[in-house]
């Protein structure tokens, strides 16, 4: 058994969700590592698309921003910002998108705008960026986040990016072309969403984590899958491939 950090675990678990030939809208940090790792392993034809308009990038180092010059050198194609959102996202061509945020609620709604009131906030966050657009148009949304009580809330202070709103019935009325939230990957486990109601549901616990620990870090009573699984620990192959991608372990 290989040693790994909690971030490495999240990257590996996220990478496993990606299939060959899918197109992924990649952000920086953990999503970037997860996509690159999947490409090295089970998904060599993974199509990496960046919000900045770069498509099929081949970065030779870790980009700090999604507009980093290393995402341009040797890319397959580049288009303008409006084109990126119009042709790719609104075009319905993106299979998987990664999102983060300050808060996520039980229906997968995400807040990256403000803690407290909008006009007089406790903390003003950066805002949507492309998050609302990604959440509305991508087939599967994967959220990677630390599992903390201040991040998991019963109702977000501000709904920046739609999950299943107040449940799947309400969400269907909105006729969004995206498939909505698909998975939430935390340092404790993987949560997916109930097919019928759209409620967040624990489907897998990471090695050494108990359901009690997950519940302790979540302020509402969590739904648990009928068949609660154990997350497979990262293999040596996965961890070695990941460290080759990110020698500085950013």
């Amino acid at each position, binding site marked *: 058994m290989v040693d790994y950090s909690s971030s490495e675990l999240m990257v590996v678990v996220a990478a496993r969700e990606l299939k060959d030939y899918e197109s992924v809208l990649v952000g*920086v*940090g953990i999503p970037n590592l997860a996509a690159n790792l999947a490409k090295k392993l089970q998904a060599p034809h993974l199509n990496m698309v960046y*919000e*900045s*308009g*770069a498509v099929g990038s081949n970065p030779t180092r870790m*980009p*700090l*921003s*999604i*507009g*980093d*010059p290393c995402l*341009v*050198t*040797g890319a397959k194609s*580049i*288009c*303008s*910002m*409006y084109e990126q*959102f*119009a042709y790719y*996202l*609104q075009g319905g061509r993106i299979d998987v998108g990664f999102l983060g945020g300050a808060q996520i609620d039980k229906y997968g709604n995400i807040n990256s*705008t403000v803690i407290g009131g*909008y006009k007089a*906030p406790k903390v*003003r*966050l*950066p*805002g*949507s*960026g*492309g*998050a*609302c*657009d990604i959440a*509305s*148009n991508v087939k599967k949304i994967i959220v990677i986040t630390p599992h903390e009580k201040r991040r998991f809330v019963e109702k977000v202070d*501000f*709904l*920046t*990016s*739609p999950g299943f*709103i107040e449940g799947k019935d309400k*969400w269907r009325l*909105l*006729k*969004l*072309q995206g498939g909505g939230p698909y998975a939430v990957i935390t340092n404790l486990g993987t949560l997916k969403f109930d097919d019928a109601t759209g409620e967040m549901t624990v489907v897998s616990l990471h090695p050494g984590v108990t359901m009690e620990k997950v519940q302790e870090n979540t302020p509402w009573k969590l739904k648990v899958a009928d068949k609660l699984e154990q997350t497979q620990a990262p293999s040596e192959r996965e961890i070695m491939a990941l460290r080759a991608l990110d020698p500085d372990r950013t």
Partner: protein
Amino acid sequence: MEAGKLTTMKEAVSRFVKDGDTVYLAGFTHMIPFAAGHEIMRQKRKDLTLARATPDIVYDQMIAAGCCKKVVFSYAGNPGVGSLRCFRRAFEKGLPNRIEIEEYSHFGMSGRLFAGATNMPFLPIRTNTGSDLPPQNPNIRTVKDPYTGDEISVVPPLKPDVAVVHVQRCDANGNSHVWGIIGEQKDTAFASKKVIVTAEEIVDESLIRSDPNRTLIPDFVVHAVVHEPWACHPSYVQGYYDRDNDFYMEWDEITKEHESTMRWMDEWVFGVEDRQQYVKKMTTEKILKLLPKAAYSSPVNYGSV
């Protein structure tokens, strides 16, 4: 548009940027025109509405310098690092002055600029629905799709008073070759009433005409052309100098307090005459670290009989 557009940054800003203007400094991470932003600060413009999808460090600086009345944006963060502290200080605490905000998603904001550039009455977009953004922004409306009856979100065109767009190379009239991340460069130039192009290189028209598909901005939407090498540091220009990621991280430290921010500004903005002096203040080590490797495009044949 008349001839004789080639001018200095001082002159271009003095002539085209007025107090109270809506200003758009273009560039999605790439080619952010810092030199123009610094000159606007040195000329002490006031009450500007600063529009930009990603305010980035350049607007954080302009807010700290007191130039700004309002920010129109979609992502007010330091990408990959965290907050824009000056933006937050102004919005949350009114330091150095209270600022208003008008907020969209990236698609909404880039769509507004596209609609402005192409003079659309409004732009239907598949986003916003279900989000708390529209209730906070009366400019985001809906129309009924005449084909399906669905309610569709729409945004209005954005037509800034003045824009600055940096390019890799252009001729003396402003016909501009741009490559790498092209962001909102073209839409900004076409949407804005006055356009200042700043360029790493001024080249002969024949070089531009050797590759017309590379010309993102044609001369007749350009009002002033400024030759300004290294205009974008700490942002970058593909093939000329890389992004100074270290500075983006340092900015988080520099801006912990308004006072520490202003000390930096006194040295690097108000303490220099122009961009040339700014560049000369940079260490050799820094310059060398930012120089890219060569990776040239393969040429294509435009010939006809």
